[in-house]
C-alpha cells in the first residue's frame, strides 16, 4: 500500500473517527459544549463534506466553513468590471474556469462569451501571457483572483510578460490574503472559535511560522493539515487534544509538504512584484492590507490602472454569501439555497465554485 492510500484507508478512517469522537466527548464533559473549529480553505470545506466527516461528527464537533474559497470572496464589482472589459472589441479576457459562472449584476462571463466576448479559460495565468504574445493587436487581461497559493503564479505571469517585453498584457488583481481576514474575523468576535484547521496548500507557500500570530495575538491554536480523510481527522483530533491539555500551539500535521519557512522562491516573487492593498471582500467589505496589488514600477501590467470601467454599485440580491463566508450562517439558512439558487442557476459565488460552501452542501450534504 502506498503511503497516500493510508490516508484514505477505510479501516484507519473509521478508527480515526472513533478517536475524534472520544476526545470530543471528553471536551464536552470538561466544557459543557462541543468544540468549534473553522476551516479557511475551500478544498477542506469540500473534502469535509464529500467524505461525510462533517455529517458524521455533527453531534461532536462544530465545523464552520470560513472565507477560504477565492471565488466566493471576490467582490461583485470585480466581476462587473470584467464583464464590462470583456465587451470591448480589442480585449481577450483570460480567467480560471470557476469565475465563468459567477453572476455579476447583469449576467455572467459565460453569458458575455455567448454574446461574443473573447473570454478564454486557462489553467495557469502564465498561459494568458502566451496568448498575449500570440495576439499582439489585442489587450489580454487576466482576472487575478486567488489566495497565497495562486498569488506567486500571478507574479510569475507578470515576470514572464516583463521578460518578453509585452505591452498588451495586464492583470486585474483581486487577490486575498489569509492572515488579515482571519484577524478581522477574530476581532469581530462574531463567532466563538476554539481553533483553526489551517489550509494545506496556502501553507506550502507561507510556511508554519506565518501562523504564530494566532497564538501570540489571539491565544488561538491551529493545525495545518492535508485533504484526505485521515489527515483531516488527525487535524481535528489534535485541535481537541490541545484544548484538553490547555495548550495553545500551531501544529504542522502536513510536514511532508509544508515547511516552517514556506516556499522561499514563491515568497521572493511575491515580494518583488506585489505590495499590500485594502482589498474588498464580498460580504465583508474592505480589510486593510488584505490583498496584494502590483507595485507602482509595474503599473503597465495593472489592468485596474490601465482601463477605465464605470463604478456602479452592484445589484443587490437576497444572496447571503457574505454571512456564509464569515461562518455566521449555514447555506441551509439562506432562503435561496436549493430553491432559486443551485449550481445550475447560481445566485451567488458560493454556489458556483467547486470550493464554495453552498456548492459543498448542495452536492454532498442535502437530505437523503
Amino acid at each position, binding site marked *: 500500500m502506498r503511503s497516500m492510500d493510508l490516508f484514505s484507508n*477505510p479501516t484507519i478512517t*473509521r478508527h480515526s473517527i472513533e478517536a475524534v469522537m472520544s476526545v470530543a466527548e471528553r471536551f464536552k464533559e470538561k466544557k459543557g459544549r462541543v468544540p468549534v473549529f473553522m476551516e479557511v480553505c475551500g478544498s477542506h470545506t469540500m473534502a469535509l463534506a464529500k*467524505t*461525510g466527516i462533517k455529517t*458524521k461528527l455533527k453531534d461532536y464537533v462544530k465545523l464552520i466553513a470560513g472565507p477560504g474559497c477565492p471565488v466566493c470572496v471576490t467582490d461583485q464589482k470585480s466581476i462587473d468590471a470584467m464583464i464590462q472589459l470583456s465587451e470591448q472589441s480589442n480585449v481577450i479576457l483570460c480567467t480560471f474556469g470557476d469565475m465563468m459562472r459567477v453572476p455579476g449584476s447583469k449576467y455572467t462571463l459565460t453569458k458575455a462569451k455567448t454574446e461574443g466576448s473573447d473570454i478564454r479559460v*486557462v489553467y495557469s495565468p502564465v*498561459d494568458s501571457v502566451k496568448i498575449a504574445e500570440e495576439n499582439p493587436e489585442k489587450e489580454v487581461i487576466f482576472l487575478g483572483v486567488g489566495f497565497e497559493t495562486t498569488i506567486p503564479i500571478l507574479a510569475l505571469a507578470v515576470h514572464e510578460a516583463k521578460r518578453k517585453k509585452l505591452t498588451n498584457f495586464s492583470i486585474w488583481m483581486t487577490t486575498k490574503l489569509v492572515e488579515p481576514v482571519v484577524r478581522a474575523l477574530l476581532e469581530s468576535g462574531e463567532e466563538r472559535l476554539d481553533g483553526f484547521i489551517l489550509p494545506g496548500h496556502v501553507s506550502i507557500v507561507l510556511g508554519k511560522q506565518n501562523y504564530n500570530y494566532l497564538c501570540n495575538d489571539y491565544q488561538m491554536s491551529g493545525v495545518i493539515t492535508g485533504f484526505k*480523510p485521515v489527515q483531516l481527522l488527525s487535524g481535528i483530533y489534535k485541535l481537541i487534544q490541545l484544548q484538553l491539555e490547555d495548550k495553545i500551539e500551531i501544529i504542522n500535521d502536513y510536514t511532508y509538504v509544508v515547511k516552517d519557512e514556506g516556499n522561499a522562491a514563491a515568497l521572493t516573487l511575491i515580494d518583488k512584484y506585489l505590495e499590500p492593498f485594502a482589498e474588498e471582500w464580498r460580504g465583508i467589505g474592505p480589510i486593510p492590507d488584505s490583498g496584494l496589488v502590483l507595485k507602482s514600477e509595474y503599473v503597465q501590467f495593472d489592468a485596474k490602472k490601465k482601463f477605465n470601467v464605470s463604478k456602479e454599485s452592484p445589484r443587490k440580491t437576497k444572496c447571503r454569501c457574505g454571512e456564509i463566508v464569515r461562518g455566521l450562517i449555514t447555506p441551509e439558512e439562506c432562503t435561496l439555497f436549493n430553491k432559486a439558487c*443551485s449550481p445550475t442557476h447560481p445566485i451567488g459565488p458560493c454556489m458556483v465554485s467547486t470550493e464554495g460552501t453552498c456548492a459543498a452542501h*448542495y452536492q454532498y450534504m442535502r437530505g437523503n
Partner: protein
Amino acid sequence: MVKRISLAHGEGGELTHQLINDVFIKSFQHHEQTQFDAAILKWDATNIAVTTDSFVIKPLFFPGGNIGKLAVAGTVNDLAVSGAIPKAITAGFIIEEGFPMVDLEKIVQSMADEAEEAGVKIIAGDTKVVEKGSVDGLFINTTGIGDLSEQRMTPEMIKEGDTVIISGPIGDHGIAILSARQDLGILTDVSSDCASLNCLIQPLLKQVNGIRIMRDPTRGGLATTLVELCEDFNITIELKEATLPIRKKVEGACDILGFDPLYLANEGKVAMIVDKKEEQQVLQLLHQHELGKGAQVIGQVTSSDNGEGKLLLKTPIGTTRRLQRLSGLLLPRIC
C-alpha cells in the same frame, strides 16, 4: 492527391466523387452493390432498435482513440446496452475547409476498424464541407440500427437486493481527454476506455437470465447515469464508495483538478443491475473478457418502490449521502 479538404470536396462534383472513392469507400467497402440513393437492409427482425449520436470531441485524436473510433463505438454501445445486436451504422461528416486529408483518412480507417471489430457495417454516409471557422475540424454523426428481436433484459423485475455492477474502472475517458488538451497543463498516460461493448454484452445476455437493465455511463459519468436510472424506475440504489473501481492515476488527476471520478465520462463501460442470484456468474463472465476484467460489484438496489428514485453513496466512514446528477459544466466537448 490533395493534402487538404476544400469546399469543392463537398460540392457533389468530381472532387466529392474522388473523396468518396479514395477515402470512404476504400475503408468502408463491404462488397454490396449500391443501386439506390438509400442503403437497403435485408433482415428479419421483429423489433428494430435505432439510435443516433453526434460527435464533436476536442481534440480529435486522444490517447486510446480518435473521433472516428468513438463515433462507431458510442453508437454501437447505445444499441448494445439496450439489448440489441448492432447491425449497421450510417455516418455523416461535417468537415472544416482546410482539414488535413491524412487526418481524415486515419479517422475513417479507425471507423472501419472499429466497425469490423464490432461486427457492424457502415452502410450509408454523407459528407459536407463548410468554410474555415464554421466547425472545429470535423464533426461526425452516426446512426445505428440493431436487431432487438429478443429482449433479454427485464427492467420490470428490478427488486430490492438486486446487485449493481460496473464493468471496469471509471473516469478514464474524461481524464484522457483532459490530459490530451494540453492547455490544462497536466499530463498523465491514462488512455480513454473508448471501445465497442457488444462483444462483451451479447454473450452475457445470452448466457445469463436475470440481467435487469444496462446503461453506458458516458457524459455526466456513472453518478448521473445511475441517478437517471433510479428516477426512471423509482428505485433507490446505494453505492459503496470503497468498492468503486478508480485507477490511481485518475484519482490523482481528480485530486489536483477538483473533479469527482463519479462524474467523469466513460466510453467503454457498462453499468448493470442484475439479480443477486446471478451476481457471481455475471462477474465471472465479465472477468473472462478483456473489456470486463475490472468488473466489480459497486452497490445494490435498496428499495424498488419509493415513489421518488434516488442514488445514495455510502462513504467508508459509514455516512450516506445522496448523489445528484452532474450540475453545471465539467468540461465541454468530451464526446
